[in-house]
């Protein structure tokens, strides 16, 4: 169906970004592009869970930590590209937008989407993360040792 296989690393990166972007943001950025895309749903947006796992001691035996809600959707463009979207939470519109972006990223307009949807999402995520890291850094303890007098 594809003329050339999509770069898996790049695809993983954009799907991961879409999965955890804030509610409504990817949909909003996509809408701003005013694309007139026709597609057919292969799997209508569906809410479910994934079982999150941890490891005993951080590195040992895996165990089930608990579930998280996830919404998924699959669709195909009129031109044949298939897109899959998985987003964290209960977000049907965002799951569909993620699937649409995934499909469109396999077409000629990929650079537009990269610039106007994915890059802003990445920047916003990075800014947000850095802001929290900066606040954490301000709470780092700087120990100093006080010299006590008994040895002198």
């Amino acid at each position: 169906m594809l003329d050339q296989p999509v770069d898996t690393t790049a695809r993983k990166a954009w799907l991961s970004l879409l999965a955890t972007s804030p509610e409504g943001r990817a949909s909003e950025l996509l809408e701003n592009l005013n694309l007139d895309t026709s597609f057919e749903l292969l799997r209508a947006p569906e809410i479910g869970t994934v079982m999150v796992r941890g490891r005993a001691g951080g590195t040992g035996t895996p165990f089930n930590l608990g579930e998280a809600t996830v919404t998924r959707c699959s669709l195909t463009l009129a031109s044949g590209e298939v897109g899959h979207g998985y987003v964290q939470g209960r977000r049907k519109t965002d799951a569909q937008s993620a699937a649409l972006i995934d499909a469109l990223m396999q077409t000629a307009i990929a650079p537009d989407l990269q610039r106007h949807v994915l890059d802003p999402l990445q920047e916003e995520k990075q800014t947000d993360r850095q802001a929290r890291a900066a606040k954490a850094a301000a709470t780092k303890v700087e120990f100093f040792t006080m010299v006590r007098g008994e040895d002198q």
Partner: protein
Amino acid sequence: MYVAVKGGERAIENAHTWLAEERRGDTDVAELQPAQIREQLTLAVHRVMAEGSLYDPDLAALAIKQARGDMIEAIFLIRAYRTTLPRFGGTHPVDTGAMHCERRISATFKDLPGGQVLGPTFDYTHRLIDFKLAADGDVPTAQTGEPQNEKTPHVTEFLNREGLIEEALTEDNTPPDLTREPLEFPASRALRLQALTRADEGFTLGMAYSTQRGYARSHAFVGELRIGVVQVEMDIPELGFAIEIAELTLTECETVNQFKGSKTEPPQFTRGYGLVFGQSERKSISMALVDRALRWEDLGEDDVGAPAQDVEFVLSHGDNIQATGFLEHIKLPHYVDFQSELELVRKLRREAGATDGQEAAE
């Protein structure tokens, strides 16, 4: 024997309508929105996610609103909702070593790579009621420093290098799941950790406290406590590769415990482990202490008969939804059961009375 009794429908319906009105409270006071609960009662939301065993802050906030702040009722709502959802799969185990730490402290090492980061903690506050909060106080702006972007290593890694602490060997089997198969004993560590991470905070705290007071004491230090955000990956079958599917705030606690050695092991430190959804350090420290106490058999320690060493006792009573379900069912109509008890007591008293009468006559 159960006999159906009819006639309560109207009373039940009216009770629920009144409940809805009471939930809203005084309508002159602005209605609470779930987003306010999510943003301002965040730790309550985290507890509901942890014990509800479902990570979804919006849903947990809504459940707290619906439950009028009754945490166990909210957890019940989450557990019930979870059962209606299909499960898409299991994630790769989270890599807590790659956590974006917002808090990270160690009680065992003062100077450790990555440093001691206090984060937004209640520690060192004076626990005095702050009346300014009731008067629309201004929000101070958090100070910022130079963000640290390198990975924060686990404290236990340092002890590992010297061979002074037991290693946690990496395995990659699919863990047992108590939400799919009934709990059976003896339970593996994986199953125990799953049960503990969703167990009631108060119960877990009580069990952990009992070990500190001397019931199976294992002298625990908090080797490390970290809170922050981790990315979780899952294989997506239709893609043929894994993507980051979720970002979760987790609290992880590793305890370092004294161990005098056994027939097979040299003296070294042993470990207890706690990992919990959300920011919940009391729960994760408790989990680590109870995990360590339950490991007595693996480590060749003696069973001193302490409650926290009894896996069946701990795992069977830690789930607050199971517990409350069984406990609260006794308030529901048991008219027929009780009727037969009443008959029995009356009969026993008649017989006893008859005997007394006979004795008096003799």
